[in-house]
């Protein structure tokens, strides 16, 4: 579904991505783990087209997308729940979700919004309130919900558990598992590596802009090097 070949990019003269190769097949949940500053968020932003790249290729559903502007990538079925939630603070929860379906012209938008509310009932109670007043966990749910409103074939999730209490982390990860059962392909970026590999099929480990390990999630979980570096035990 998604194939990235030798991707380079960064900010000005600082190269953050130094040749990334990565593949996501339809129906998979793929975890991308790595420490702060390894380039995870930069990679996801490059995939969505909101971060310029300097070299490399990206293919989505068999089509080159690296020269497409961001809105055309959304239209092709790739949406993102960005790091730090990035919700539209002054707009209502309802409007945030509606904007997630900005490019859709079908009649299913209202039903999909209700589906998001069924998934995260706490959002429904606050649907008319400004999203900026939600708690961190609720904002995270809203960011995921907004990305789902775009009816993605591939959902990019950037740090959905960042800054959340353990109970909320479980809730968010349970939601991710449910999405996968609904047939959505997911590329999940996490610092919480153990939790991410727990629910993923495969994983990539990124270090200073390069993929250093790749394999089935269970292999990475038991890999001594990955364990010591990212799972916090050896």
């Amino acid at each position, binding site marked *: 579904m998604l194939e990235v070949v030798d991707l380079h990019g960064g900010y000005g003269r600082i190269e953050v991505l130094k040749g990334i190769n990565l593949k996501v097949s339809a129906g998979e949940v793929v975890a991308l783990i790595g420490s702060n500053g390894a380039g995870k968020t930069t990679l996801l932003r490059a995939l969505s087209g909101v971060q310029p790249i300097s070299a490399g290729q990206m293919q989505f559903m068999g089509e080159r997308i690296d020269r497409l502007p961001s*809105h055309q990538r959304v239209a092709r079925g790739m949406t993102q729940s960005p790091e730090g939630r990035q919700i539209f603070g002054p707009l209502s929860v309802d409007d945030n979700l509606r*904007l997630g379906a900005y490019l859709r012209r079908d009649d299913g938008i209202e039903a999909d919004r209700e589906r998001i509310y069924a998934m995260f009932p706490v959002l429904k109670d606050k649907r008319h309130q400004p999203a900026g007043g939600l708690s961190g966990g609720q904002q995270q749910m809203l960011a995921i919900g907004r990305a789902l409103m775009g009816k993605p074939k591939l959902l990019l999730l950037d740090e959905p558990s960042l800054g959340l209490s353990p109970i909320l982390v479980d809730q968010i990860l349970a939601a991710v598992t449910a999405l996968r059962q609904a047939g959505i392909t997911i590329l999940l970026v996490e610092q919480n590596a153990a939790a991410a590999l727990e629910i993923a099929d495969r994983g990539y480990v990124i270090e200073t802009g390069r993929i250093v390990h790749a394999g089935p999630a269970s292999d990475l979980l038991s890999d001594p090097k990955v364990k010591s570096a990212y799972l916090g035990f050896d």
Partner: protein
Amino acid sequence: MSELLQFFVSGLTVGAVYALVALGFTLVYHASEVVNFAQGEFVMLGGMVTVFAYAAGVPLPLAALLAVLVAIVVGLLLYWLAIAPARGATAVSLIIITIGASILLRGAAQIVFDKQFHKLPAFSGDTPVDLFGAAIQPQSFWVLGGAALLVLLLYYVMERTLLGKAVMATAANRLAARLVGVNVATIMALAFGGSAAIGAVAGILITPITLTSYDVGTLLALKGFAAAMLGGMGSPLGAVVGGLLLGLLEAFGAGYISSTYKDAIAFIVILAVLFVAPQGLFGRRAVERV
């Protein structure tokens, strides 16, 4: 009493024009974070193009429509030729670009048109209407009605349509707006075109009362900006209230104190307000959780 009413209506009339200029500032600022100091030139274009088209024999309504279209084209060109290529530049650079554009437009107007003052006939005659003893120019009703209509239209678009929500989303979080598929460049072009149209309408409506010339834009931009600051930059309601207040301050200042100092009086009040409330009357402090 009739004197007070007289000042009040003339203040509201001028204030409505400031309010429209301030709304133009607000719209562009919302979508692009640019403070567009060429906003006053749209008002000038509205008046001048109408005057010259009308003098060339075009019926007034058509001349006005033509003027609005010319302003929209100039607004879009300003965005595509000057603002879009400078994407990523600092706010100060962008402001300087718009000041440059404003000087360029003024110079071009001086060549294309001329340096004289021009007048349009009032839309429905010059016979003053007697309102509780005050003599009101019929054109004042055109200005106030036109401004009210534009404000309502803009309110409807911003609050009730998906496009308006996309503009607000772009203002709130540009990155997120792009991630949900909003074409931010289109939104910004629309904002420049829309603010140009609003400015042009203001220029057309006010020309029968205040006359126009190639350089009326400078002071209008200044006043409109002051009105936007007074109301709270980025707040549409603030722009309207700020504009009307500024107009009233000027009219009462000129009427009861001295017409020589009417600008000074207005600006002193604005300074005083901003000392007490730096975010303006309706400026929102950002509510965001991290």
